[in-house]
Every structure is written in C-alpha cells, then in structure tokens.
C-alpha cells in the first residue's frame, strides 16, 4: 500500500480529533502516524496524518464529510519539510559518555539530561534520520524511547494557512441554492 502524508485543517472543537480518527478506524484506513496541534489561526487546529492506502482520494473525501474539517491536502508529492522528534533514554556508563556525545553531535541531536548511568537525548529530524539515529544508539542499550507523530509543512510561500478558510460570506449561497432546489 502507498504511504500518503495528509495535512488536515479542522475547527478546534472538542471531539474533532475523535471524529477524524473514528472515521479512519471504521473505514479501515491504517494510520501510520498522527500529530495534532494549534496553528497560527485561533480556532483552527492542524493534523498531519501519515496514512497507508491505495484509495487516498476516498480518505480525503471522507474527511471532508466531517462538518468541522476545513481543508485536506495530500502533500506526499510536494516539496515538504517533515519532522519527527524522539526522546531516547540510554543506559550510559561514564566510560561511554564521550562516544555518545560524539554520535549525538553527528546527528545534530541534543543531550537534554545526564545522570550517573543514563542520558536522555532529543533527536529531531526527518523520519529516516530519526530511524537511523535510533539504530545507531540501540547497541548502547535503550531504556526508554518515545516518538512523536510526523509533522509536515510545504516549502516556499504557498501553504495551508487556516486564516483564509474562516470567512463568513458563504452560508447564504448554500441556503439560496437549497431553496432554489426545493422549488
């Protein structure tokens, strides 16, 4: 199955994430990764979903059926910046500290906590780079690990701002068309 990255802008209402995720579950679409958060526009939240599907057009249409979904974009083939973050707690005896520090430096990872026998490293990057880093530190002994979902943003001036989606002049059109249809 093909992997697609969808950027979804939604009204920031209670339960909206539940509606979206529940739709994925009941229609059998497999979520590989999901991240949600606020955007530059008040009242609009943004979700990045990595979904495995050969019928991504259906996924997009079903998302649009949700009343609170404002915009869905498949950015799989667009030039994007993609980021994930991992926090990794490693078992590190003092004699190995230098080696880990050097490795972290190569990957641009940050050491955010050091104790006598352990270190917590923050690794941010594209999914492949994060994978790679984790493979490299695994032999040292990973005590704990936590990864976020992927977030994505299209490069350049074009983008997915919520601001232009929240206008107010349209609803009379819908009501007008509905009454025209009823005649």
């Amino acid at each position, binding site marked *: 199955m093909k992997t697609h990255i969808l950027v979804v802008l939604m009204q920031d209402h209670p339960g909206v994430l539940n509606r979206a995720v529940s739709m994925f579950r009941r229609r059998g679409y497999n979520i590989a990764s999901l991240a949600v958060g606020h955007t530059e526009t008040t009242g609009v939240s943004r979700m990045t979903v990595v979904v495995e599907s050969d019928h991504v057009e259906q996924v997009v249409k079903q998302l649009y059926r949700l*009343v609170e979904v404002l915009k869905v974009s498949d950015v799989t083939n667009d030039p994007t910046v993609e980021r994930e973050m991992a926090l990794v707690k490693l078992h590190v005896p003092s004699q190995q500290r230098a080696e880990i520090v050097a490795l972290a430096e190569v990957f641009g990872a940050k050491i955010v906590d050091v104790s006598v026998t352990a270190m917590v490293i923050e690794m941010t990057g594209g999914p492949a780079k994060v994978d790679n880093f984790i493979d490299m530190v695994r032999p040292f002994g990973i005590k704990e690990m936590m990864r976020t979902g992927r977030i994505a943003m299209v490069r350049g001036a074009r983008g997915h701002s919520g601001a232009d989606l929240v206008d107010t002049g*349209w*609803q009379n059109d819908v009501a007008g*068309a509905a009454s*025209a*249809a009823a005649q």
Partner: protein
Amino acid sequence: MSDKRTGAQILCEALIQNGVDTMFGLPGGAIMPFYHAMWEYRSELRHILCRHEQGAGHAAEGFARSTGRIGVCIGTSGPGTTNLVTPIADAWMDSTPMLAICGQVSSAVLGKDAFQETDITGITMPITKHNYLIKRVEDIAYAVKEAIFIATTGRPGPVLVDITKDALQASMVPDYSKKIFLPGYRPTYQGSKKQIKAALDLMLQSKKPVMMIGNGVMMANASDEVMAFAERYQIPVITTLHGLGAFPQDHPLSLGMPGMHGWVHANRAIQESDFLLNIGGRFDDRVTGKASTFAPNASIVHVDIDPSEIGKNIEVDVPIVGDAKLVLLSLLEEEPEERKVTEFHHAAAEWLVYVRELQAKHQHKQQYLNRPDTSVMMPHDVYAVLTKEMNERGNYRVVTDVGQHQMWAAQLLDWYRPRTHITSGGAGTMGFAMPAALGVAVAHPEDTVWVVCGDGGFQMTNQEMIVVVQENIKNIKIAIINNGFLGMVRQWQELFEGKRYSGTPLTSPNFQKLAEAYGWTGITVESGDQIEAAVQQAYATDGPVLIDFRVEREVNVFPMVPQNKSIGEMITE
C-alpha cells in the same frame, strides 16, 4: 423587552423558528424540563408519545421521507437515547433529514457514570452527519438552528443534539439571531458546467444509453426534470429501490427496479448498455451485484451531491457533484449540435426497441411465481388485489419493512408518485414499517397509508399500534404477509444452505386478536377468495385496520441475483 426563558423554553422556540411542528418521543428524567416547557407550546409543537424510542425514531423518519422536511425524535438519557441508535443508523444509511434531541444528565455529574448516563454523542459519532453535546443554556438556540441546517442541506442525514438537564433548566434572555458559521461545510449544489458538457457529449456518442435514478432524485424533488430529460433524449429509466415512484412506472421509458431482486430486463439493460447516467444513487452492492462485473461496457456518469459517493464503489468516467434537480436543469439547458442529437436518436431508437422487447418478455409480474397445484393463497395474490384496490382509490402511500414482503412490494405494487414508497433500504431495519407509517400518516392525513410487513418484522415494533389509537389516527391499514418464517433468511437457507431452517420458523400471536386488543379492526385471511373482501373492508372501515394474510409458507422472491454474483446472472426459479 425581552424576558428570560429556561433552556427548555428556548429549545421549543428554536424548534418552532426552524420549522418544526411535529415531534415523536418519550419523556424521562433528564429530558423532563423539555416536556415541562413543551406544554406551553403545544398548539405549535405537536408531540406524539411513542411506546419505545425506536418507534419514535422510525416515525420521525417516516415523517421526513414522506415530506422532505426534518423529522424530530426525542429520548431521555441512557437507554432512552440508546434506543434511538437503530433509527439514527437507518436515517444515516438512507440520508434522511432527522433531528434527535436527547436529554443528558446534569453537567456536574457528566462523566461520572451517573444514573442513566450514556455517552450518546460518542456512540452516534459514526452514524450521524454531526452531533452536539450542549452543556450551557447559551448554546441551545444556535445548536438547534445549526443542527437542522446541517440535517436538511447537502446530502441530508441525522443530527443529534444531546442537552444536559441543567442547561435545560437554566435561564437567560434568549438570542436567536446568531448567524450560522460553518466554514468547513459547503455542499456543492450546482454541477460543474464543464463536467455537464462532458457528460452530454459522452451520452450523445453512445448507442445504448440508460439512466438510473435513486434516492437523490427523490430528495431533490427532481422527478419532473428526470421526466423532461428522459423524454427529450428518449432514454430508458431504471429506478432503484429508493427511486421507486420518482419516475412513473407506466411510462413507456420506465424499466423499473434493478439489482438483487430487480427485473431481468433492467439488469440486462445495464449489463448491455454502453452509457449509464446514475443520478442520486450510490451504487449499493444490492444494485451492482459483484461491482467488478457491473455494466462492463458502459461509460458511467455519476451525479451525486456527496463527492465521497463518487468513485467509492464503481469507477466513473464523468463525476458530477451537485444537486440532482439543479444538475438535470443544467443538462436540459445544454443545446447540443442538432446533427449529433439526430445521430444519437437514430442509434438509441434501435436500442429502445430492443430494451422494450426485453421488458415485454420479462416484466409479467406473476411470471416468477411457481404456483403449486393446490389452491393455496400465494403472497402474489395479495399484492395483486392490493394493487387493484389502491389504483382504484388513489392517494396511497406504502411503508414496507425488510425482507421478502418488501421485495414483493417493490416488484408487484405500482409506483407512480414520489415519496409514496417508504422503506428501510441501506440499513435493512426490520421493525421499521409500523412506526414509520405512523410518521407518514401524521404528515399525510389525506392519504391511505398501507403498511406491508412480514410477521417477523411486525413483532419487533408492533407496540406503536396503540399510539395510532391514542392520537386518533385513522388512515393506517396494515397487511401482514404472514408466512410463519423469517422468510428471506429461509429463502437463502433453501437456495444455498440445503434447507437447513435454523432459526427461521416463526410462531406468531393471533394478529387479529392482537389488533382487537389494541382497539383496531382485525381481519384474518386464510384463502385467496377472501382477499378482496378483506381489503375492501379495510377501506370501508373508518379507523385503523390490520389484515393477517396467512399465505403459502415457502415461497421465494424471484428473480434473484445470488450475493456477490454479477447482475447478469439471475436465478428466475
């Protein structure tokens, strides 16, 4: 000067302002403030007390489907709302505009497993177009306005509003003026001109065109436009189960119903067509059979107001998102080159002759009846008399349940007018008919509402018969096609499972006595020669009548396409 109102009063006023005049429901603890307030508004808001919330939900569906207006049902928190789940799911599958108003426990105890607390917004999320949990009196008026707007526009559907008891009890000076703000909800009504031109171009190149119309035509009130388009281009029209009545079946271009229990000629026409224009149908699997084998030679144009239906089950050549009526009007506005139209007419005329020959051969209504030698009463005999009597008297609407009797009704009764055939299609909800008929009868007191129901489905919701008496409704007549089996399952067991009748033989109460206990007129019919007198007596009786037709027990619905087979492969005996 504005006075303060309770949330419950505001709820009543908001409903009235948004066009509601009839509601079906049952009270209970959490919804009591609404019932308290309703009393003041009873001259504008008619409340019909049902005996089970499922009945209230189906009644609201019957009201909505027969009128095109919003159907409203009410339940209290907990079991009162879970009982509404089946009708909500039914309305979801058949795109019925419905508003479910639910009482909820007070916000102070919400989430604490309070008495009669159920997370009904969570439960109904996948089967509603949208739903709300309202915890503040300030939000009630707007939620009602938005809910009814969503339920009735675009592709209609059920919307649920769950309101906590304290929100119904709190008071404020109401404000009904807030404008609807739904930036993510912009249904497309006008079809794209470019796509409409492309569709017409494709059609004019074809030699074997068919049109298929579904529920979308009914809901857009587009029957006249279907007729105008079909007649202008002389295209045969196939009507799905929910399209029955949207195109008069005695019209020379009418082919009737396709699909699993559709007519052989309708399915053959689809399979042999080179162009199929589907307006407002969703290519349900009961219509298409095995999807990969459906209309193998046809270019397909699909008109639907919901873009997610296009390309979901069947790949299409030209998608048109829009309202059935407006798209048809746009199609009719097009003035294609005279030469192209003449060529098309020439080719299509030959096809029409062929299709009508097929129809003449296959649409004898009694053809698929394997009548035994004995003089038993066959279900078909009942439908023949019903057809005759209904046609003679006019003004009928028929509500059917789910199963064999439903397919026979679709096949054997006559459908001339939109919204006269009301049934549970997508969800296939047994128990739908009796309560749905209550809603139809309330909305259309001038019509005779026939319930055609099986003995199985009837026993699921027959408690609503007493509501008919309490409300002094006289225009409901019930015909039970009583064969002592859950008949459609039995048919499958006979045809595909070596006659292992597991869980299908059915004992029923004496329906005549049951009817009498409810204050109805009850009639039992045990032989074919009594059918006509019974139906005539039903018409002559000024009140609700139930007729128990004890028909031959093991009769099958034919023609039939076995599940997951091509609609080209029909069993006819």
